[in-house]
């Protein structure tokens, strides 16, 4: 096989992977149901790459004993499905199962810390929102302590439970405009 064709074929996997990620996220954002979820910051986090704001969702910590059907054996590392109910201002979790619900809006997640008593942790891959390097973190005050602001993650959810975080509202205001006002000349 000609070397040029070999090179082209070798470059197909990385470009295809990136293209697939972009296409998947764009499809989720354009076709997914808009869901508003409460952000409940409870643990300070450091940025590892780029600057991001930690947006741990309230529904990331759920009591499985209350929400999972009796007899459901959920272990660390299991894929779980959290069914959501519309609400104002936030959607809330109504059930957790290991089987994909047949209807309604649900999120697909990974059970990372399962406890038989108390709250278990589910990772939906929605706990980061990247912000500009000089941008403000609305979850914290200037002195570094937790701020008393209502944070809402705006998420688009597909019918397979995949979700993409599109914005964070700070007391109902999109992050970009909240951040712009913060830096606006007084």
């Amino acid at each position, binding site marked *: 096989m000609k070397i040029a064709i070999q090179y082209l074929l070798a470059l197909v996997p*990385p470009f295809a*992977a990136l293209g697939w990620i972009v296409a998947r996220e764009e499809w989720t954002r354009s076709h997914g149901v808009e869901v508003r979820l409460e952000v409940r910051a409870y643990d300070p986090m450091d940025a590892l790459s780029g600057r991001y704001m930690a947006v741990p969702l309230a529904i990331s910590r759920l009591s499985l004993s209350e929400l999972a059907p009796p007899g459901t054996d959920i272990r660390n590392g299991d894929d779980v499905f959290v069914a959501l109910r519309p609400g104002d201002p936030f959607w809330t979790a109504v059930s957790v199962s290991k089987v994909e619900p047949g209807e309604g809006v649900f999120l697909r997640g990974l059970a990372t810390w399962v406890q038989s008593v108390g709250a278990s942790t589910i990772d939906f891959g*929605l706990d980061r929102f*990247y912000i500009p390097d000089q941008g403000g973190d609305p979850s914290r005050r200037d002195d570094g302590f937790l701020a008393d602001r209502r944070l809402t993650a705006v998420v688009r959810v597909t019918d397979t439970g995949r979700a993409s975080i599109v914005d964070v509202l700070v007391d109902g205001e999109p992050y970009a405009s909240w951040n712009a006002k913060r830096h606006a000349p007084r």
Partner: protein
Amino acid sequence: MARRRIAEVLADLERDGTLAPEQRRVVEERLEAALDARAGASSRFIAILMTLGSVLVAAGILYLLAYHWTDLAKGTKLAIVFGTLAALHGAGFALAVKPGGRANLGIAFTLMGVLAFGAAIGLVAQIYNLHAHYPWAVCAWWLLSVPILLVTRSRAVLVTVLALFLLWAGWHAGVWIEGLGSHMYERGLLAGFGLLAPGIAVFLAALAQACAGTRLASFSGPLRGAVRPLAVLGPFLLAFREPWKTYEQHGFSWESRTDIAAGHFLPFALAIVPGLLLLGWETLRDRSGRSSSSDRGVVEPWIVAGGALFLAASLWVEPRSLFVGANALLLAAGIGWSWLGVRTGSAATVYFAVFVFVATVVARYFEYLWDKLEGAFAFLSVGALLVAAGFLLDNRRRALKARLAQGRA
């Protein structure tokens, strides 16, 4: 110019009878070989320089983009990501292949492309606020770079992909072990990594053997280079007695630890099973004579595999004496590689064996004497020990080197 001058002098020496024609021919051949070896070394130095330069350029591009990133529209960002990747690989192809003529520079650009792919994944994740529990981004980074590695057959790309593979394997295993539970968290990490390292060593050794004698023969060296450090890392981590003392004090029961212990073996199993299968295949080919490999080094990989399985069995059956077996393996490795190094005339093998032996002794010294001595005495005695050990080892090294040089002559 120097070559021309040397040729003129040799011609003069032959003319005035100092050198016979046959002698002149031999001298010219030997000089040619020596000068070419130096040129080969120059070429390697240039390749290393370009590799380092490509890493710095990739980092610089990333920094430049990051500085203005937030002001760009999403479409522009994606165009930059894909365009940069295509440009780097395109430049690499053009310089190395068609029209070609600048192989080292071409490989440097291809390497930049491989590194930039990781940056591309990170930037796409940033654009879409993506995050995953496991390090799938690093997995994609090394895995999807394998095709370009196979096409270019570049050792620089191999070392990069190998480093990314090891980073991903350790990271992924760490997240997996963390999720297994808290009962034996520290011991779990030691057990998991202590087994994973030699497991990966077996896999890489098998891969190196499979590459030998094929178009990918240049990969054998770097792959083998990673085998020994990984092979000793496992027993070194498991050679400490302290983490397993609780089993001596409180005992252990199969019922209470089976569930956790089985999960800790999974990364090891995923690494060693493919390695053993490939090694078995290569051994069969080797014995049947069908292998075209000129390097029939399957013995050492099997020994490493045996050591890894011994550690796994010790951890499973009797963790209370795991540290004994691990120390025994380390000492056996030091002695075995010393013998192998002398036998094959490999100074690097001898040095590595000495390093393993010294590291084991120093680690045990700190472990057992630290709480028995005042800190100051510990420093003094360890310092004196190291100086004495260094003196003795240097003498031994000189003697071994002299023996090796004698053997070669």
